């Protein structure tokens, strides 16, 4: 008979004596992540790999420190890297809807913006001054005088010529006309009519000739006027060049190392010369219509502004950008619009950067789930990485949702290291279904859910707790508190040899322990504070467990913890409520009868059994047939059920219990109800490990303890789970006192011996003793087989007799 486990085997407590410090205040901060060397190496490689498409996917459970490690590694790397260039958007004077992107050395973007503002301000002062100068006035006056002189001379000469012929040149409301004179006055029609016909013809002819000359003069005046305008325009260009030329040349010299800036400045100069009136109309300019938003002091001069998209003037290295809300626009930028007269307008100044712009030349950290959930964001990110450029495209325009003026900003070359942080499942889904993913994210840093509980790691973990306590402004932990916290981590991992990497829950625990310690006026967090905090957490989440517990104790859910029953065994079910898990016993019953070898899983029949559970049932059916009916018909029909369960049963951890119930039913062997069983079995009857072993033992213990421990009660677990045990102290105390027991078994036979008190015996109906479990089962199965054979023989005889009778009738 298998002996119970010794108390020392029931848990894997951390020994506080191994720590040399009194409290964690004595420990230095830990820089490296505890127990994640593979992920750390992958991360360092991925961050250091300075080639395109070597972006990273950092996967692992939340709270594993993956984000902290990412931040630390890229911060170290970024601090030593060169600052990337600044980027500005400026107006494209030739094609305003395609703004020009200019790269500048870090810090030069803000300088160019200031220089351009200063230039425009200076031009606003200089250009009017130039045009108000005496020199300009004199030159315009000279042009005007020339024009006027020619104009006046032309009309004077014509007037004089007309006067010489007794004809006056008169100004009419619409132009000019000629009229014959009489005594210095325009001749009346009567006087004209009285003139001899020859004289009338002479006058009309003379007027006709003068009119032709006047026509030529007027045309000449128009030509002179145009010529004057051209001369003034040329003069204006010369004067503007005088004002703008040296200012722009100074800037060109300053930015001689940036050819695109020099080209831009040339374009600015040409545009200023072409549109000089906009600089001249400042004084007394007409006010803007109401409702027109004004940006800058002169709306028309906004085109000389510099839109500083990315400014690295104040940065100390490569940028590190974390995107909390990775929408399409937050990633690739956007072009804003403003309403003017009811129309949406935009210009290059309304181009807004995205996270890719800000992170260009550095690192971009994105939550994988968030970017995948945002419409178009994931595709946009991949497109940018694949093209190696940031192209701002309006989604609304792409999908024809709006019809308004928009821009096509020149794309900006992209060189960024993207670090996606997410769950493992996302990584594998992307690997499987997104062919671009593996091309663009070539490095995976996989953070473990837990790490080895080696002495070295425990010392490191103590330093990690010291770091956390300092960072979170907790009281320091004494060595017992550190040991208790490590034990808590091991319990989270569900493994006595491991510690959970979920630091988030440890921080939450320490926060509560700190609160308790401060309430008690303690100088440090003690082990008692940590244990009280664990208990408080458990208690807060314990409502459902207590409710189930109560239903068992009141007999509503029938669970026996004493006596013996045939075909009935206590299994253990785990309930997971978020991060909290607990276990309660569940009654499993089996019935057997003559049949054709089928074991009916009632849970599966009513679709309340999961696939893994069904698999477990099929395995145990196979085990039965193989062990007991290898050379005879397996004439068994059996039914298995989890009594009083109303939800889905999943997992195979009850297959040992189910097999025990079956064997009990087959052999008519009573099972001790003071024991509960957990474990899965294979086709050879070997017992295999299951999860949440500690919770399961504690679940049965709590029921037994509530009813009164008898010393007979206990739990049978797989031997492979012994190293996972991290039982509560009260359970261990009970075991130590002999009031409760935990048995570790390797085979079904060991479990059956414990459950029935009988030896397992040989699985042979001939040699097997009826005083053994297997002997009884074998005998019963042989009986069933014989019954089946006999039934089959009667059937054959009835068939043959019937055939003879039919032949006799027919013959």
């Amino acid at each position, binding site marked *: 008979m298998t002996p119970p486990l010794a108390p020392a085997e029931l848990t894997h407590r951390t020994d506080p004596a191994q720590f040399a410090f009194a409290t964690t205040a004595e420990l230095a901060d830990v820089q490296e992540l505890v127990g994640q060397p593979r992920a750390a190496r992958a991360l360092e490689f991925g961050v250091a790999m300075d080639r395109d498409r070597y972006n990273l996917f950092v996967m692992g459970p939340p709270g594993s420190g993956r984000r902290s490690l990412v931040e630390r590694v890229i911060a170290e790397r970024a601090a030593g890297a060169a600052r990337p260039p600044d980027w500005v958007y400026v107006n494209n004077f030739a094609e305003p809807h395609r703004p020009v992107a200019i790269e500048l050395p870090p810090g030069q973007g803000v300088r160019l913006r200031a220089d351009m503002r200063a230039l425009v301000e200076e031009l606003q002062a200089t250009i009017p001054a130039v045009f108000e100068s005496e020199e300009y006035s004199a030159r315009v006056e000279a042009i005007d005088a020339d024009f006027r002189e020619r104009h006046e001379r032309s009309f004077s000469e014509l007037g004089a010529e007309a006067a010489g012929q007794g004809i006056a040149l008169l100004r009419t409301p619409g132009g000019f006309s000629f009229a014959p004179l009489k005594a210095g006055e325009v001749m*009346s029609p009567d006087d004209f009519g009285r003139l001899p016909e020859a004289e009338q013809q002479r006058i009309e002819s003379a007027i006709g000739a003068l*009119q032709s000359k006047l026509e030529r003069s007027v045309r000449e005046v128009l030509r002179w006027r145009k010529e004057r305008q051209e001369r003034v325009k040329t003069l204006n260009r010369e004067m503007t060049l005088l004002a703008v030329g040296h200012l722009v040349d100074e800037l060109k010299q300053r930015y001689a190392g940036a050819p695109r800036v020099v080209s831009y400045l040339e374009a600015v100069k040409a545009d200023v010369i072409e549109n000089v009136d906009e600089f001249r109309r400042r004084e007394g300019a007409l006010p803007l219509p109401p409702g027109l938003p004004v940006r800058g002091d002169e709306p028309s001069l906004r085109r000389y502004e510099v839109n500083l998209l990315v400014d690295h003037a104040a940065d100390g290295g490569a940028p590190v950008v974390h995107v909390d809300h990775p929408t399409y626009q937050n990633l690739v930028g956007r072009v804003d619009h403003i309403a003017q007269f009811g129309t949406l307008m935009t210009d290059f100044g309304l181009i807004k950067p995205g996270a890719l712009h800000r992170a260009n030349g550095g690192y971009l950290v994105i939550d994988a789930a968030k970017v995948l959930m945002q419409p178009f964001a994931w595709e946009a990110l991949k497109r940018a990485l694949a093209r190696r450029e940031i192209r701002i495209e309006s989604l609304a325009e792409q999908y024809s949702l709006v019809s308004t003026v928009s821009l096509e900003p020149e794309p900006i070359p992209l060189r960024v290291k993207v670090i996606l942080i997410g769950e493992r499942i996302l990584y594998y889904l992307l690997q499987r279904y997104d062919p671009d993913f593996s091309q663009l994210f070539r490095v995976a840093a996989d953070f473990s859910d837990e790490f080895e509980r080696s002495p070295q790691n425990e010392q490191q973990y103590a330093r990690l707790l010291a770091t956390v306590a300092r960072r979170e402004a907790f009281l320091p932990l004494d060595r017992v508190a550190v040991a208790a916290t490590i034990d808590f981590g091991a319990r989270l991992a569900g493994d006595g040899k491991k510690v959970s990497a979920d630091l988030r829950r440890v921080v939450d625990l320490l926060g509560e322990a700190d609160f308790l310690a401060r309430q008690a006026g303690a100088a440090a967090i003690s082990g008692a504070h940590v244990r009280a905090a664990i208990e408080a957490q458990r208690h807060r989440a314990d409502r459902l467990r207590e409710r189930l517990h109560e239903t068992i104790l009141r007999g509503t859910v029938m669970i026996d913890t004493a006596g013996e029953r045939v075909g009935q065994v206590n299994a253990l079910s785990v309930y997971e409520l978020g991060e909290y898990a607990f276990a309660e016993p569940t009654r499993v019953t089996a019935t057997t009868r003559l049949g054709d070898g089928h074991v009916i899983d009632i849970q599966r029949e009513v679709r309340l059994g999961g696939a893994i559970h069904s698999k477990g049932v099929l395995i145990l059916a196979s085990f039965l047939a193989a062990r007991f009916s290898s050379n005879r018909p397996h004439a068994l029909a059996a039914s298995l059920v989890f009594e009083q369960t109303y939800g889905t049963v999943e997992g195979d951890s009850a297959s040992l219990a189910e097999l025990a119930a079956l064997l009990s039913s087959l052999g008519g062997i009573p099972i001790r109800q003071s024991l509960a069983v957990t474990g899965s079995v294979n086709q050879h009857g070997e017992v295999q490990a299951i999860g949440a072993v500690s919770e399961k033992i504690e679940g049965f213990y709590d029921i037994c303890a509530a009813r009164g421990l008898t010393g007979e009660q206990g739990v049978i677990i797989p031997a492979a789970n012994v190293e996972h045990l991290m039982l509560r102290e009260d359970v261990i105390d009970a075991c130590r006192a002999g009031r409760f027991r935990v048995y570790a078994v390797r085979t079904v036979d060991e479990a059956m011996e414990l459950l029935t008190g009988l030896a397992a015996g040989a699985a042979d109906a001939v040699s097997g003793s009826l005083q053994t479990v297997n002997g009884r089962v074998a005998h019963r199965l042989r009986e069933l087989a014989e019954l089946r054979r006999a039934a089959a023989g009667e059937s054959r005889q009835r068939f043959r007799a019937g055939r003879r009778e039919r032949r006799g009738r027919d013959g």
Partner: protein
Amino acid sequence: MAERVRIVVALDTASVVVPVIETAAGLAASLDATLDALFVEDEQLLRLAALPFAHELEFPTARVRRIEPADIERALRGQVEQARRLLAATAAPLAVSWQLSVVRGDVMRTVCGYAAPSDLLVVGRSLASYPSPGAGQPSTARFTSLRGRPVLALFDGSAAASEALRAGQGLARVAGVPLVVLIPAAGPEPFRRLREQAAAAAGSAGPTATSYVMLPDLHPGTVARAARAQTAAALVWPASGGRDPSALAAIVEAAPCPVVLAG
């Protein structure tokens, strides 16, 4: 109680309307005077239109078209309305009260007959336009035709000249432009004497940038040349010898700017 000074502004088809009205309004504002506009429908034009071969060469299209008296009548009514609008727009910001009368007759004779000796008479006519002010000036600004150009006042030592000088000074102050005093003198000494006299006459009229230019004579051609050289905005001429329509016509036709007849 002194009677308010009246500014008479003569308008007709050949008037260069904007500078003339601005000059008149500026004078009215500076002298706290009333503005009396007289639009003369030139009877010579009506007579011309009645001639059987009357044609008009349109400006600036240079298209020739037949004109009838009715065309001229209609066009004159349009010009009167235009003048009324311009007067209203110019006088209102200066708080100048004004009126517009329409008469028919010979322009110079009618105007000289209409204006009393105590009135300041503003006339500006030309076959061509006056020199335009600097390009790019805002259209809402006052005195666009006067901006940047001096007001010229002719001073010959007469009582009328003193009045003309004060009128010119007032106009220059209101328009914010300098004053140039043209002094006809045979030599430096008479010039100096008249200059001192002019300075004394103008002394109490307030701060206005004033310069003095000597002229060899008072011939309209000489004065007109000086006005061109100075790019004058307006020329204030003392009516020492009375208001002879022919003399006024000679001055007005020679001058490159509105002429103010004072005294």
